[in-house]
């Protein structure tokens, strides 16, 4: 029997589910291994009978917690997909501001109608078994995680920084091109895709287990950033990790 899988989304852009919809020919191979029972982005049907739940987006409201807990109850394996779900993502930017101000900016005079709290990753609410990091996650890593789970294996996600992949790809270091890169503290696994394309790492995969944040900040300052801007570099994606 093929394991049944379902997809869920919370606060996010659904860009990660789009990556799955865009798998092209590999989607057929994937469908040979699993049965999709719920996937709002591509199908109408829905079922609560599933083994693996893929969750996109961060949790930004108290009332979302109930839904997450229900998914946890239904699924034997919960996988967080994309930065919002794995580390809180850019939604956590709001965590640096007053929540009432944030609501007013977004909803204007209707702000009182909407509820919000600190944006957080899925594992701040329910236990998560596997992570597909990235903003958006890459198709390759999604398949890597799915294959691992189907083989009964804990997916291996690197605990070394993006620099490792950058060096293997023989990129010119972003700092040498005048960019300010956060790759030296960011968890690899993306094959340094942004730097490969000539830009820099923004940190969308979250930090490695033991980042040397002080050294990273000093490097940013040495290459010309102000102290505030250097600290700011850690805010874009690391909002939740830094607050907790």
């Amino acid at each position, binding site marked *: 029997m093929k394991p049944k899988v379902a997809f869920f989304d919370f606060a996010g852009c659904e860009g990660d589910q789009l990556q799955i919809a865009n798998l092209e020919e590999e989607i057929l191979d*994937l469908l040979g291994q699993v049965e999709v029972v719920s996937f709002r982005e591509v199908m109408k049907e829905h079922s609560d009978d599933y083994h693996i739940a893929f969750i996109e987006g961060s949790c930004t409201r108290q009332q979302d917690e109930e839904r997450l807990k229900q998914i946890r109850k239904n699924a034997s394996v919960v996988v967080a997909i994309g930065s919002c779900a794995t580390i809180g993502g850019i939604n956590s930017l709001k965590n640096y501001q007053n929540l009432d101000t944030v609501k007013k900016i977004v909803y204007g005079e209707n702000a009182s109608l909407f509820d919000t709290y600190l944006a957080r990753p899925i594992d701040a609410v329910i236990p998560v078994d596997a992570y597909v990091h990235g903003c958006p996650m890459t198709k390759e890593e999604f398949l890597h995680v799915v294959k691992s789970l189907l083989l009964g294996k804990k997916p291996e996600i690197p605990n070394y920084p993006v620099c*490792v992949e950058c060096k293997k790809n023989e990129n010119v270091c972003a700092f040498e*091109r005048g960019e300010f890169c956060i790759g030296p503290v960011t968890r690899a696994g993306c094959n340094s895709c942004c730097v490969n394309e000539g830009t820099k790492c923004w940190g969308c995969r979250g930090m490695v287990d033991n980042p040397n944040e002080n*050294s990273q900040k000093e490097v940013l300052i040495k290459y010309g950033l102000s102290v505030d801007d250097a600290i700011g570099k850690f805010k874009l994606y690391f909002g939740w990790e830094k607050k907790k």
Partner: protein
Amino acid sequence: MDDDKKMHIISKDTFAEFINNLIADNSLNVVGVKSKGEKFAFGPLESANQLRLDYDVTLLPPKKYFLPQYEERVTYDVATGFKAKDPKESKSNVIIGVHPYDIMALLHMDEIFRETKSDPYYLERRNSSIIIGTNIQKMSEQCFAPSMGCATIDYGYDLMLTDLGEKYAIDVGSHKGADLLNKYAKDVKKAFARDIHAVGKKKMDIVNMTKQKFNFSSELIPEMIGRFYEKDSFWKDHSEECLSCGSCVLVCPTCYCFDIQDIPDLSLKKGQRLRTWDGCLLEDFAKVASGENFRDTKANRYRHRYFKKGKYLFNRFGFVSCVGCGRCSSNCLPDIANPVNLFNDMYAESLKSGIEIDSATVPDISIKTGTIIEFAPKLATIVKKVPMTANETMFELKLDDETDLGHQPGQFVQVSVFGVGEAPFGVSSSPTKKGTFELCIRKLGNVTSKMHTLKEGDKVGIRGPLGKGFDAEFLKGKDLLFVAGGLGIVPLRSLFNYVLANRKDYGRVILLYGCKEPRELLFGDEILGLEDRDDVEFMSTVDWCPEEEVWTSNVGVITTLIPKVDFDPQKTYAVVVGPPIMYKFVIKDLKSRNVPDDHIIVSLERRMKCGVGKCGHCQINQLYVCKDGPVFNYSDIKGVPEAL
């Protein structure tokens, strides 16, 4: 040309034609130095115009053509097993524009990949590739090749170019180089004395280009660094800003550590096993499945890099494994990886503390080139699966080719589980057991957990036996004191059962066995049955006994059993196997009972990946646990700080 070994002259136009002729021959892969942004990199050449022989340094060394970043070595198919890629299919290249220090680095790597067990893929690429070197025209800011004696080189190339303005001098270094020139270049002229003179002058100028200099002779490095191992504050201060990003080692032309990963395809039935670059500066490099990290601080990892290059490889091969290319320092963002700064600091501190340092004596080394590494595991079938405790299961395996494993007691095998990966396990059965062999496996990581889901009749892959086991021959006639803690009983049992099978050849046999609590006792029936034998003295202990369990023997850690046995330390050899923490205490107690150091034999556990002394993961200081061990005589490792 009738004389291979001479120097030749070629005009720059004719040189460009030569390169274009090489490119035009589709049977050759022609690569050379090209610009990449404001930097340089080796890459495929489409035209001679792309070649930038005036480069300072390339981002990565040409090592990538011999030990590629990612390399498929084995494919597997659940239906048919494992298949190693034919080394003959390895791609060979004509590599143009290699600087002398990078040529020297390849000569270092040749010895590493040839020693004891040779790597057929690396060697095939080396044998079939052609190196066209070039003397340095511009030296990178961080280059200190002159200090390492690697700014120029007279060996290791097929052709070597020196830019002499409107022409190149080409020094022919091999028949392959001569043939290449003959076949693809026209108008090659004999060099006159003035040209040879000009080349000599250029080479001398190169030595003076450097901005990075040691304040001492680099020959002092092995001896000097050896005195700094225990200066913790020195290493801590220098590594404080380390990002553990591995950049310094990944760009190094002499670093060769690697990882092995299994990549299943979407059928989940087939896949490939990749070898990929790894680095000892990365946090998890020496971490084992149980979670123990044998080099868990930045300072320890940072020190290991310098020791590996400055001391360990010197002891094994007689060279300091650094060619002075300066890539480590130019790629280190916090700027702490520059060996010139580190060694100058070390020298200054030596002077300050009045330490006098002599040049290290180059060790007398004969490098044994041996058998070819077998990368593809053999298939084996699980013939019996016996749960032993909640987490440990005994697997009895039979090789599908019907051969005996042929192991020594104490050796290990690498077990491959399809789609999951490979992990090392000490063989638990005695070699006297024919036809099958046994492994006792604790559920811990991916491979072991998956292994526990396999059933009798299922297949796994086996590489080995590997490593150095117990010397059962030498131990004959001796009294033996076996001390096993927890899982340590597993590899120890291979020797213990061998001794029992040949009981008359050995003196007294004493076994002390301890585990955490009664339910964790391994080989229960077998072990407790020893109590009925009068030719074996046996004692067991548990750290504690929960109320609901029954235990009538000793309660306390393993060392509480040692005072209870009486033995003659001069006639007794102690064989001690257990978790890392146990060794320190057991050895201390044995020594207090006057057991000589060389009468203590241990077996160590580390993260063994390749199993043949190449990948670097299991290294403890200068020793490779997989090759020099896992069984060690204590007298050989008591001075090895990372061992116990």
